[in-house]
């Protein structure tokens, strides 16, 4: 499991919540770090903050989709403008989380993503 957020507290709390569900969690601070990790390791899911310094979440999604189209991406955002949500939807994400969210919703989404990835199921 890979968690990418520039806020250390959020990385920390998500990691702890997912570790409780027995997931191995790695974290990345910036989108480019997440991209590098994705090329080196195969993760079961990526939890990605949309608002990141440098390379933004939306640009990162399109690169990651082409590097590994089977990696489910769960997007977190605090700014749920209609346009943002529409753009993220168009890029094709597994689940869209609006901050602040419950850890239950997050872990449910991550579990579903891991199942989805494991099943090797992709559209078509």
């Amino acid at each position, binding site marked *: 499991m890979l968690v990418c957020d520039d806020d250390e507290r959020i990385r920390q709390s998500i990691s702890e919540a997912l570790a409780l569900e027995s997931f191995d969690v790695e974290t990345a601070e910036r989108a480019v770090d997440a*991209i*590098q990790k994705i*090329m080196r390791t195969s993760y079961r899911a990526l939890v990605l903050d949309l608002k990141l310094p440098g390379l933004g979440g939306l640009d990162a999604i399109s690169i990651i989709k*082409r*590097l590994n189209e089977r990696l489910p991406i769960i997007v977190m955002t*605090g700014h749920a403008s209609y346009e943002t949500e529409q753009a993220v939807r*168009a890029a094709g994400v597994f689940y869209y989380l609006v901050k*602040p969210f419950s850890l239950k919703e997050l872990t449910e989404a991550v579990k579903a993503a891991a199942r*989805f990835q494991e099943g090797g199921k992709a559209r*078509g």
Partner: protein
Amino acid sequence: MEPSKVLVVHPESGIRALLVRMLSSFGYATKSVTTGEEAIEETASGEIPVVLLDLDLPGMSGPETLRALRAMAPAPEVVVTTGRGTVDSAADAARYGAFDFVPQPFDFKDLSQILRAAYDQTLRHRQAQHIKAALKAHDPFPDIVGKSTGIKRVLALIHKAAPTHSPVLIQGESGTGKELVARALHAHSPRAKLPLTILDCGALQDTLLESELFGHERGAFTGAHGLKHGLFETANEGTLFLDEIGEMSPATQVKVLRALQSGEFRRIGSNRQIRADLRIIAATNKDLREEVKRGRFREDLYYRIAVIEIHMPPLRERGEDIPLLVEHFLHTNAYGGRQRLQVTTEALNCLMTYPWPGNIRELRNCIERLSVLAENQVLTVESLPPSILKSAQPKESSDALADLPLEEVERLHILRTLERHRWNKKRAATILGIDTKTLYNKLRRYGVPLGGRPDGERPAPSREPRAGD
């Protein structure tokens, strides 16, 4: 004409400064960064057509940076370089889609010419995109490849259904290309100005699925404080593709049916009705009529979504399309460098006999893997995975040559002969009854690298007995 932009990525400040100075003097608008990470952030704007990338980078490595750059849309052309010039790194770079390789120390005149060629390539690519868009009328469904009766029937249906607002149900095994059909339907509909929104109904449990479909109001349930619009709202006036609809629970089926019947829905935790003008395209690998009979899928929802039905044939029923599909995937492969992979007749025969339980997706993944692994840009029987070799019994079949243009038969025959004789071009020419020069000319015309396989070096294991070797 505005100066062409080049991004220089090099860890050493001295060389960076030198490159910027020299390239500027050749008329390039040059920018420079130190790391791969910076290169990606800089290029994400889409305004940099050419990157000159040193392969020896700290942090994100040169090859990783190359892969990430080539995964962008639009992707820049990348010219790679290394001070530790090895043929291996050049070959790796070509596999991941580098435009060219330049050794260090630089010959600046050469470098400038290569960068110019890379720039022209970017322009050509972008023009090709425009032309492709303009040719839409000529080849309206470029991603759905094939000339078999089965696929022709599908294309005819798409053609008829696309411009309407009718819901479409696409049925077919996994990996047959149901999503491509949905995309084609959407792209040729009056709703094409909005993106197609996709939801996999089998991946999420009810609560999450309904949150994705209908969104939620601020404070809708414990912990959910923010506003989420949901797909019914963000896909308004567009097309919503509900994949794996056969997996949807009865509870969610009712809610979706209600929304489709009334054209209205409510966000979770809200009483306000919101109008939604959606076209629904649904897909399933189940026999939905059978699911209805067994009481697992609502009949009323079935009739609402299955106004037009499209059946995708499995790949084993359209073997004649395999050569076209292979060609298509080699062409569209993300890692495709300048040189196209060639496929020998025997390898193609094997691919045509294998039953492809995973359908087109399996074929595409297979071709992608093989193009990364292939040596010398030729795909032979030996390079195929054992699973395919085992089930396909390659035979000296002339069927594979049926319906091929004469030139293609000649190309395949020449490649096969070369393959059989370890790329000894002189011997191949003698056997083919032509002189070496003619052979070279033909290879050049087919785009086979003339360096090809250096004679005698690392001979590929061949299953063919090599009499007289």
